[in-house]
């Protein structure tokens, strides 16, 4: 299956939007989708223009999760080295800020992609869940970690062990998502938010992401030290000088990412 037929990528005003386009199977993930998304995320990270990435499945469905045959063909040995496993990692590892625009079903691997974003904006029709337990397996791409990051260990356990789905407003209430918007306005709202975020100082935004993600692989003390290092490095940037000059001059700063 050609990647172009299952992923659509567009770039406008520093925002790269990556859309899953398999509506006939409610945006189910297969190797082509995962590889296509990962390629598009990595390309955005190195194109020198993109400041923000938006991941979406469009206005109807984010993704119902992995194609069942993507899992059934795996063995214990093959899964660890499979392109789908690395696809999730490559998407998660981008240094750019990522906004997930979620509508309708956001299940399994789709949910793992969405929750790995820095900001999750959902429509009022969104439904989140990790149903893998019902197949006798576990979420294997972040679904045993990412709920806890946002909504706590209880929500994590209920989702991953219970396989229970939660709807948009409940997701908002427990902190799983950051904003609920009307389904009809989801894509335009996220586009506007992404443009706004793209106007922030790019180096500083990436530094925030790096500092936040540090807790995934460091102790709290090491992450705080990492934050100090990031801050110190930023003080030498043109963006920091521009930001301070603009503040003192009472004008809007223009950040170049240098």
């Amino acid at each position, binding site marked *: 299956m050609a990647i172009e037929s299952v992923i659509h990528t567009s770039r406008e005003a520093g925002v790269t939007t990556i859309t899953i386009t398999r509506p006939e199977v409610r945006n189910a993930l297969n190797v082509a989708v995962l590889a296509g998304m990962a390629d598009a995320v990595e390309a955005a990270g190195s194109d020198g223009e993109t400041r923000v990435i938006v991941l979406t499945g469009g206005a109807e469905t984010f993704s119902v999760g992995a194609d069942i045959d993507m899992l059934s063909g795996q063995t214990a040995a093959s899964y660890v080295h499979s392109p789908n496993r690395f696809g999730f990692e490559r998407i998660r590892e981008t240094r750019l800020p990522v906004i997930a625009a979620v509508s309708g079903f956001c299940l399994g691997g789709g949910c793992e992609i969405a929750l790995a974003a820095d900001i999750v904006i959902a429509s009022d*029709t969104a439904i989140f869940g990790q149903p893998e337990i019902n197949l006798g397996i576990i979420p294997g791409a972040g679904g045993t970690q990412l709920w806890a990051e946002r909504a706590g260990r209880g929500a994590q356990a209920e989702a991953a062990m219970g396989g229970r789905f939660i709807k948009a407003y409940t997701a908002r209430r427990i902190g799983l998502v950051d904003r609920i*918007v009307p389904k009809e*306005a989801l894509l335009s709202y996220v586009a506007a938010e992404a443009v706004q975020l793209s106007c922030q100082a790019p180096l500083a935004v990436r530094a925030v992401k790096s500092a936040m993600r540090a807790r995934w692989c460091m102790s709290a003390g090491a992450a705080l030290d990492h934050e100090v290092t990031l801050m110190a490095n930023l003080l030498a940037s043109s963006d920091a000088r521009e930001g301070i000059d603009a503040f003192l001059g009472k004008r809007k700063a223009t950040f170049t990412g240098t």
Partner: protein
Amino acid sequence: MTVLMISNDMNDADLAKAMDKALRAGDALIMDGAVGRALQTGAQAWIGTLARARSPVTVTLSGEVGPRGLALALLADAVTLSNASAQEAAHRVPLLAVLAATRLGQVAARAFLAEPAPLRALKRAGVLHGAKADVVAAHKTALVAAAELPFEEAVSFAALIHLNQEQN
């Protein structure tokens, strides 16, 4: 418009499934039929579905109205009565107390529970009205957002509906 006929042998799981299917179509939903059953714990599934429905929901109460019918009435956007009757105090159950407090407000919920006749309690609470589906439809998502989101987020939600209507 989708019509869902409810029967007394329909358990809560069946009712939840039927509601989900009907609401997925996105059309206005009209519910009619037998609504005399008691409320059991399984009712939580369809209560959540109905409380967050994006489409307008109309309920016709007829015959013997039990706690299930009263719950449907409290959750619906429009309610009509047709040869309906209800046993005294049928509305004095915990699930209905929660629904009344959520839908009518804490003060009105107390008045609702204090009135011994369930149908009169519904009438006095202002629940029995035949709001037009198209009028409700235009405001349904905003009404649900107001019930579910903190005030500022609900206002922001409604503002996006305005913006979207202006742009289209």
